[in-house]
């Protein structure tokens, strides 16, 4: 059955927040952002705005009835600035007016005077000054200090990766509707309905049951609506609460780009030691994460960076340390991969440095060091069903590495101005929230007397196909057609205390909860059928909308069974709960089993560099990916392809440019470029690894959302290899993204082009 979501989308019958019918009297909010990166508010005069036509209120920190605090993990972020501002774009006031235009016009009249204080944008400088969000974190295994002496080769260097704007096509938005008896009904575009509920209650001084948060779908999120959706939702709630009127806030694209957080930039020092044969003996890295002005999810993201420091390789001696550095930029946040991509970029840089030093192809070192079954990772967990080597070998074989390398060599010999390069990119990505508490989910399933089914979980549908998958899981468990099942919006009143839809876990957790709930219902139905048919329940099965007895179809169909079961006064509603078993991690010790399992795969990326123009194209991406036993290959393929292309964008054209005073210059689609269809290679092929059943997740599947993103890292090294075919490069400097400007700089032998912009 085609996904009902897809059908609704092509008919434009999938309302997003800004498309929802506005209740009579809805007011519109516009946010006044701080124009400076760091300063003390001297004067905030809202009177001129209040005097404008249509304006209902101008709200500032003084209007917050509860706590002016929206921080999740660390409570360090005001909803509306109080006293000081810490980044350009930090919300200072909210204007509420009859139309969005009136609200924006009035906002521009607010008088805001700020005494500027010194701002820091470079994470290393922030670290020097002790501006850390949390104490440094370290993960270590073996004895690194002792191991260096045994290394035949040691390479050192620095790898920097840039920020990345999510560019979900639907901007941040929320509609807040006051209801009877002091209740607030919020419709935010958030990945974290319970997070919005909790923080709204905190800010408004209400109880969580006073607030219902409901999400139908998101127009893309990619992590950018996990914590970053909260402020706008809470502001809309605050205004709706104070004015007793519905209030809607929808950020314009420029506002969204200037005010919301992005993927963390990292600057990292690395050191990799190898034995005489090229086996990795020791790895050390210090990550300076630019966290932005508030913690947001930075500490959790850094943790995931540390977990992925050695990517898909076995390294016996490791010590990696990370700093969350407070910089005067919008709080950096979750983005597909959640710190993993930044870590893998460093590891692959170190391998490239070693390969170039040794004059060996990086792929040899990669292959030699790939994880084997049962190998321990630096945090002590051993990999099971390790498909690192399998996927690498299959990629090499299936996509004809040898042939491609020969072709490239011939091409490069014959072509003075165009050089091609190839890189392999293995990925090993851990699945589970690294905060073990979050690995829980609930599902609520009703069967109505007409046999139709309503299914609610904590999963938010944002294009990742979680609704499609969960519907399929439920249909299988109940033995009925998917048409009978409606996957409901995500609501805090139906499922409480939800974890955000994040960390690729939505199907793993919610699908499992839904499966358990459906199994409970199926079991009740079988019991009832057994009584009706006067047989043993163990011999019955629900399949094809009928009851089967020892595999044979009976006269009892789904509708009759449901109706009869209701008559017998059996509960046709089930709630089930799932929590991932055996997860534990001690952050102090840096050891434990933080993941349910790992996802593996290998990409082969090819690129061409135009030496004359200093430009690059990604020619092909071929991937062997371990998707477990895919529930829906159409969805999984789409997730993989979409993730890969985002990863290509991160490594190449996506470049956030700031002015010296911290203002974002690339604040529109005209200046911040993401992949378009011409950029995306026509040769983009994802093959799923066969026989890759995964007992650690629902119905042998594997999470798919994040891991493919990291294949994009291969583009950096493919381009770099193409450049190296023309001229040698410094082996101790790796800076992403490889924009055209940087490529020409590398071709022109400009060392600073390989250095970070943030060094300035």
């Amino acid at each position, binding site marked *: 059955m085609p996904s009902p979501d897809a059908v609704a989308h092509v008919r*434009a019958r999938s309302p997003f927040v800004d498309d929802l019918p506005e209740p009579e009297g809805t007011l519109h909010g516009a946010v006044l952002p701080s124009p400076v990166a760091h300063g003390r508010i001297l004067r905030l005069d809202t009177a001129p705005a209040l005097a404008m036509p249509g304006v209902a209120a101008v709200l500032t920190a003084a209007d917050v009835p509860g706590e002016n605090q929206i921080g999740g993990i660390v409570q360090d972020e005001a909803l509306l600035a109080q006293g000081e501002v810490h980044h350009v774009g930090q919300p200072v006031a909210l204007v509420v007016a009859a139309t969005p235009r009136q609200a924006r016009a009035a906002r521009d009249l607010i008088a805001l005077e700020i005494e500027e204080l010194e701002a820091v944008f470079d994470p290393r400088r922030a670290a020097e000054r002790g501006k850390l969000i949390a104490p440094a974190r370290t993960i270590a295994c073996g004895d690194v200090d002792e191991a260096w002496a045994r290394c035949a080769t040691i390479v050192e260097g620095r790898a920097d990766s840039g920020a990345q704007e*999510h560019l979900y096509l639907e901007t941040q938005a929320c509609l807040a509707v006051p209801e009877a008896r002091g209740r607030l009904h919020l419709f935010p575009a958030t990945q974290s309905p319970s997070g919005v509920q909790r923080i709204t209650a905190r800010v408004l001084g209400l109880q969580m049951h006073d607030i219902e948060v409901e999400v139908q779908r998101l127009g*893309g999120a990619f992590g950018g609506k996990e914590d970053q959706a909260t402020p706008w939702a809470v502001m809309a709630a605050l205004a709706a609460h104070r004015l007793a009127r519905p209030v809607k806030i929808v950020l314009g694209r420029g506002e969204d780009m200037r005010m919301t957080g992005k993927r963390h930039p990292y600057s990292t020092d690395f050191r990799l030691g190898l034995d005489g044969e090229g086996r990795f003996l020791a790895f050390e890295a210090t990550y300076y994460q630019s966290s932005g002005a508030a913690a947001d999810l930075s500490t959790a993201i850094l943790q995931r960076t540390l977990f992925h420091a050695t990517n898909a390789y076995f390294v016996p001696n490791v010590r990696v340390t990370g700093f969350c550095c407070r910089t005067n930029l919008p709080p950096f946040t979750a983005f597909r991969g959640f710190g993993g991509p930044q870590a893998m970029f460093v590891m692959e840089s170190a391998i490239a440095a070693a390969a170039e030093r040794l004059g060996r192809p990086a792929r040899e070192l990669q292959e030699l060091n790939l994880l084997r079954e049962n190998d321990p990772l630096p945090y002590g967990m051993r990999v099971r069903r390790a498909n690192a080597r399998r996927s690498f070998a299959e990629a090499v074989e299936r996509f004809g590495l040898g042939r491609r390398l020969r072709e490239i060599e011939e091409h490069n010999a014959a072509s003075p101005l165009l050089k091609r390069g190839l890189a392999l990119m293995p990925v090993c990505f851990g699945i589970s929230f690294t905060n073990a508490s979050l690995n829980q989910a609930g599902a609520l399933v009703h069967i109505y007397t007409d046999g139709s089914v309503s299914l609610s979980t904590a999963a938010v549908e944002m294009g990742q196909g979680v609704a499609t998958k969960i519907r399929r899981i439920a249909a299988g468990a109940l033995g009925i057609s998917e048409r009978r099942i409606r996957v409901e919006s995500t609501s805090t009143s139906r499922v409480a205390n939800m974890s955000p839809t994040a960390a690729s876990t939505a199907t793993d957790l919610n699908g499992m909860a839904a499966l358990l709930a459906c199994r409970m219902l199926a079991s009740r139905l079988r019991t009832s059928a057994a009584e009706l048919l006067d047989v043993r329940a163990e011999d019955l099965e629900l399949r094809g909308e009928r009851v089967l007895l020892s595999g044979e179809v009976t006269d009892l169909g789904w509708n009759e069974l449901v109706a009869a079961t209701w008559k017998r006064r059996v509960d046709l509603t089930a709630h089930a709960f799932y929590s991932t078993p055996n997860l534990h991690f001690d952050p102090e010790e840096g050891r434990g089993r933080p993941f349910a399992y790992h996802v593996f795969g290998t990409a082969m990326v090819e690129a061409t560099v135009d*030496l004359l123009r200093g430009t690059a194209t990604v020619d092909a991406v071929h991937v062997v990916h371990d998707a477990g036993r895919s529930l829906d290959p159409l969805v999984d393929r*789409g997730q993989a392809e979409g993730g890969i292309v985002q990863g290509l964008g991160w490594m190449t054209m996506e470049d956030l440019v700031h002015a010296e005073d911290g203002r974002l210059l690339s604040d529109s689609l005209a200046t911040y470029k993401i992949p378009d269809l011409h950029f995306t290679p026509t040769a983009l092929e994802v093959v799923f690894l066969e026989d890759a059943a995964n007992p650690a997740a629902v119905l042998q599947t594997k999470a798919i959302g994040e891991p493919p993103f990291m294949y994009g890292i291969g583009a950096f090294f493919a381009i770099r290899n193409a450049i190296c075919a023309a001229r040698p490069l410094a082996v101790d400097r790796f800076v992403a993204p490889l924009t055209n400007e940087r490529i020409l700089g590398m071709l022109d032998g400009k060392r600073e082009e390989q250095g970070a912009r943030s060094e300035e």
Partner: protein
Amino acid sequence: MSEGGIRLILNGEAVTASMAPGGVVLDFLRRERGLRGTKEGCREGDCGACTVLLGERAGSGMRYRAVASCLLPVAELAGRHLVSIEGLDGERLSAIQRAIVEEGATQCGFCTPGLVVALTGFLLTSPGLGEEDAMEAIDGNICRCTGYASIRRAVRRLVDGLELEPGALETRHEALAAAGLLPPLFAGIAARLDALEHAPASADAGGIPVAGGTDLFVVEAARLRKERLRLLSRERRGEPVSEEGNLIVLDAASTMEELRQSPLLEACFPSWRRFLGLHSSTLIRNRATPAGNIAHASPIGDMSVVLLALDARLQIGRDGERARTVALDRFFLGYKETDLAPGELITRILVPRPAPASRFNFEKVSRRQHLDIASVNTAFSCTVEDGAIGTARLSAGGVAPIPLYLAESSAWLSGRPVSVATALGAAERAAAEITPISDVRGSADYKRRLLRRLVLAHFVTCFPGLPQEEIAHAIA
């Protein structure tokens, strides 16, 4: 403007727009009409989520174009057929919708309505009906979710399933409606438009001249909302491209897409289609005009740079007055300052026909190769006589306050042999003739180095016989 507002056919229904004529169609649809299938992703023409079809009478039938509703003034709707996604959604899924669903080419769905509309635009307007034609037609539609691979598969499925002869464009809509590829409302639409009573859309002589609006409505939509507009699209007289003696004449208000499709220009300037394809996207080129590009005087305007190298002249006139002619290389006076006096309009652009043995090339490097503004662009044309360069014209954008004719480099080139040394000399001279600044599109130093490279690229492209190894050696 007529008393009762602007009359149009919206999807299947004759309606009157009551919004300000200077407002944009995206707001008309979403706010005034409550049609919220058309999405707002950027309000700058850069995402395609707001794509609509604009139909007008042409010959015996209709001419449709996919356009960005966020940059389209409501005034343009007068007497036109406006089609939004709601008008394309019938009881059963169309072939386009089915292809997208079956290939999983929609994830979050936010870009999807725009994609459906743009693909319909492809069916309605593309001379060819192959996969690449379709991909070109949707190159202004950004999707952050799918990575485009599934979109390509959907397009393939769509075009493979088409049982349609390309046929005449004017009646394509009838053929598509008959084949069930378009909803029935398209049948007979020309007659309905003829019968629609509407005041002629203004040629309001006192209004702000709007051609495609693709610069104006990005920069100053708020101001324009309250202004009177003079719609130059309504004042077109002739063919987009014609010939007069030794001149090629471009109607100043022709669209960039019309120029791109011109067989005459392609014949005169090899790779013309590819060069113009580097300007924005199909969606924007369907509205953008060369005159707007020139009059806007952006230092980076692609068309300005191309026409500078082609030694174009502008005919400039005021209503009722005789036109004067200005060489384009004297038209730009300073940053966003031109030779245009208030009330004057560019009416025609005259391009000398190239001499038989001449060369032309255009180079553009931007962050993203398509749908992006250049870091540096440059054009080069020359005649060749006995292995030497005759007259040469070199221009560049993004390297000075104006689109720059590189007079000194051009003069230096004439009479030089076609050689690597000449190429390197020209590159050095060009780099010395410019004054780039650092901005979001690159540092001044980068732009200078880039222009040098692109001048070499002109030579490599125009003179394939030049030894590339030598050039490679020179830049190493």
